[in-house]
């Protein structure tokens, strides 16, 4: 934990407080519109799908599907030491999509990973410091 050298996000407590607080307890929280019943990501105080301000937070399944990926051979700061690594967008089971660094796949074999687009992925949590936990995703099938 003390040696976490990659960028540590500074969560916005006003628009995304429950997201960042949830992560500290290893919970994956998402905002959902009470009026149209759709989840969205990144978190906002109004629904980007219908414009409502009636937003509630819920604990999501922490499951999703691999939508697309790239293998980063060139990176900066702490990530430079980990290159090549796989970045991926995950289609969240509850709807919408997020970026992550994908675990459980071999960055030297992108052609193999191409065949796994659509595969089930699960969230896992890494404590970067006492105040911030970052969600990462792992391909599980």
């Amino acid at each position, binding site marked *: 934990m003390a040696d976490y050298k990659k960028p540590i996000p500074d969560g916005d*407590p006003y628009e995304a407080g429950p997201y960042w607080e949830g992560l500290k307890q290893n919970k994956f929280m998402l905002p959902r519109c009470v009026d149209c019943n759709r989840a969205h990501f990144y978190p*906002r105080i109004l629904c980007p799908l219908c414009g409502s301000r009636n937003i509630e937070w819920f604990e999501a399944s922490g499951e999703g599907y691999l939508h697309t990926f790239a293998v980063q051979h060139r990176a900066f700061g702490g990530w430079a030491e980990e290159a090549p690594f796989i970045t991926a967008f995950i289609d969240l089971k509850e709807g919408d999509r997020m970026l992550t660094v994908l675990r459980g796949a071999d960055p030297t074999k992108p052609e193999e990973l191409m065949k796994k687009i659509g595969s089930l992925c699960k969230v896992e949590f890494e404590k970067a410091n006492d105040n911030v936990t970052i969600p990462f995703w792992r391909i599980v099938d």
Partner: protein
Amino acid sequence: MPSNPSMAAAIVGAAESDKIGYIEEGVTNATLHAQAIHNVCDQVGIKIQDIEGVFAPGVASQLAEYLGLQPKFIDTTSVGGCSYQMAVHHALAAINAGIIDIALISHGESGYSARKNQGKGRGGGGGADPWSPGAQYETPYGTSGAPSNYSHAMTRHMHRYGSTKEDFAQIAVTTRDWATLNPRAVMHSRETHPAGGPITVQDVLDSRVISWPLNLLDCCLVTDHGGAVIIASAERARSFKTKPVWIAGAAETQDHSIMTEMRDFSQTSAHISARAAYKMAGMGPSEMELAMLYDSFTITAAITAEMVGLTKLGEGPSLWEGGKAGPGGSGIPVNTNGGGLSFSHSGMYGMMLLAEAYRQLSGTAEDGVHGIPGKQTNAKTAVVNGTGGVLSVTSTLVLVADD
């Protein structure tokens, strides 16, 4: 003929964020914008989705994304406190032109809270604000810079349509062929650059991987570049020593601001801006004789070819296949300056697209400085498409030569 914009538009509502003044619990710019916009829409009796033009000094694209909008008019002109009056002027012009009927002008500035929050929450693009969506939800995962983002779209294109790295490499090869006819192109020849001159598909595939599936030669240059154009009224356009090139169609929209919000990784919003530009011009893609397509990466040009209707969906690279889009090729010429891939790309390539489109349609593409024999095409019409951000914002022009 354009009409006097006087009385062409009116302000129909005005509201504030829920709280203003000294908000002791703290607030961000995003929240202040969102509350004020929600409140003014309630007051006027419209939905946020009814807004057609977003005029928000400095943050129009980010704000449109936050609101989930794909506006027809995006104006982020930011020149200080008077920007909001200027936004009224710009909205008046857009409404008078018949492009939009409903414009949003928005302001959100946490001047007091930002002091207590060490400046955080004040918005701005590029992830400079730690509380911006990019800084919170993308930077922690090690993507930085355009290639690390665009590669995800190329993977999705390959997955969805079965396109290959070889297909995309052909775009770089053909574009390089155009650069060999442009003495000012960085990659014109071995004289202009050690790696200049013609290249092969194998050269592209053998170049080092930057962000798989993007190799170095799939990526644009990073150069220094200055450019400018002059636009004049129809009344004045033929009174100069140069030839006019007419703006027959113009349109814009966006899909997102940051990659996380991209709705479909295998398309950009150019299908919307192109359709609107063609409609304004009263012309279609089959009538285009030149295409200037933003080629920050081979994937950008390929997707754009599909979006502006020059190929079917999924077949973008076929436009370049076998050098068809190159000098003397059998297809529509594309990126005749050598593109961002081989001519020059300083970061915002749109001006280079515009300058070359003007040269081609005014018959000045072979002046010895900007082109040698073989570069000038016979094109009388052109589709010009710019792509900004991370496949985010698009603008399409349909230009027509003077006759």
